[in-house]
């Protein structure tokens, strides 16, 4: 199954990424509106609509939030 190497790669990166801890009070930059993975859902929706009506591909949009845990 081709997905297994990808999942292992993702988990490896997460493992590496987890080493430098960013404390909750150090996440101010990550909480800025322009750091969000998706900043305007209506705009994303119309753009995805446009692309999916012209192109044969689907999926791949961000499923998770910024994960900044700022809230």
């Amino acid at each position, binding site marked *: 199954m081709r*997905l297994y190497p*990808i*999942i292992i790669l*993702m988990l490896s*990166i*997460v493992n590496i*990424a*987890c080493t*430098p*801890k*960013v404390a*909750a009070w*150090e*996440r101010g*930059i*990550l909480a*800025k509106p*322009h*750091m969000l*993975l*998706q*900043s*305007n*859902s*209506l*705009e*994303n*929706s*119309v*753009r*995805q*609509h*446009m*692309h*999916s*009506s*012209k*192109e*044969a*591909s*689907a*999926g*791949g*949009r*961000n*499923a*998770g*939030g*910024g*994960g*900044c*845990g700022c*809230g």
Partner: protein
Amino acid sequence: MQVVVVAVVAEKNNILASLTAAALALPSMVSKVNAGTPISQPTTNFQYSHYTEGDERINVDIYQGNVVVPIEQNAEFSLDWVVDTFSGATPVLNLPVAIASSTTGASGIDTIDNSQIVLDNQEVIQVMTGASTFERRYGVDLGFSYFLDDLTLKFVTAYSKEPDYLSKAYKLGLAWDFNQKLTTLSLGFGQVFDQIRPSTRMIQENKISHQVKFGLSQILSKQSLINFSADYMYDTGYLSNPYKKVFIQTATPVQNLINAGMPNVFYDQRPEVRHQGAIAIAYVHYIAPLDAALHVDYRYFRDSWNIDSHTFEAVWHQPISENWMLIPRLRYYSQSSAQFYKTYFTQTRSEPYYSSDHRLSAFGVLSGGLKLTTETTNVNAWTNKIKFEVGLEYAQQASKLTLGKTSDSAITDFNYLLITTAIKIEF
């Protein structure tokens, strides 16, 4: 290859809208499964977009809005709606000019000249629907999110209706923050049920789409984060385009294909199963000296029809004063063609699948856009924030922009422009 465009007698055209109703439902269903906290005050958005293609060949006006309302401390309810109107003409058939030109009259192509032998890579005429088509679509999504400490659960149901297409969908999503909220894992599952009743044909067909989604976002540092996602989609049922036609040079009837009114012209026919997979990576980095954010995305897509695609996108968010932001973007997309796609067919295939729908051809798209936003806070006693946005995006779609080589015809080439204006109010 020379391209000639011919307008043919008016035919009901629902191509753009009908084919994309389900596609529209899917992205909205898989949009956001954000772990986090619910909003504390209601918000509402309204957006108007105008899409225009080629020389005003297609015009679409899209009105959208949404309302998000908090329910007590740990839940929220959302309502999204869309009304879009489509007008214009789209291609339905490619014909080698050698067999079509001899019978082309003022009212369009009535028949074809079967005495000619057609070879590959001949000059092509693109037969269009009439230019007077007008159609309206209504859609609504209802969402409910429930927030636990590190867990967010979301349920969305969607409904979309137009004269020849009905789409119903639901999606379940879960997002889990862990690793001191440095990491978010999200899972989603959804189904879309479509009913297709083409206005020009006496058929009624159904289609079901299933989607499973996996996402992982990770904080890398105080100023960067990354997101991975993987999607698997399984479509079954009627996956053809009921309005599209193909020319197949053959002396005998083609097995399982339906004649579309002219000799050797048949309705588009695709497999009744389609497996699709996509993996994507998104990286966001803060550039401190400019207070800017750079977003870089890549997606790889592959399906069981032998289409694969690459999408690259970069977006720069640049604050230009306290309340103003400029957002330029660049996007490049390239896909290979489906195994049963050809501009036209000079002979029959071993499998009974044929399509000349340009969406299944090999092409690339290069687009660029610019958006300007401004916001005002503490507007009055009952309005906390108002944000305005205006943006435009221009794209060129062409076979010569395909990554690698392609022999597909340049007949599919066109340009389009998208203009959006939006207002967001936080109470």
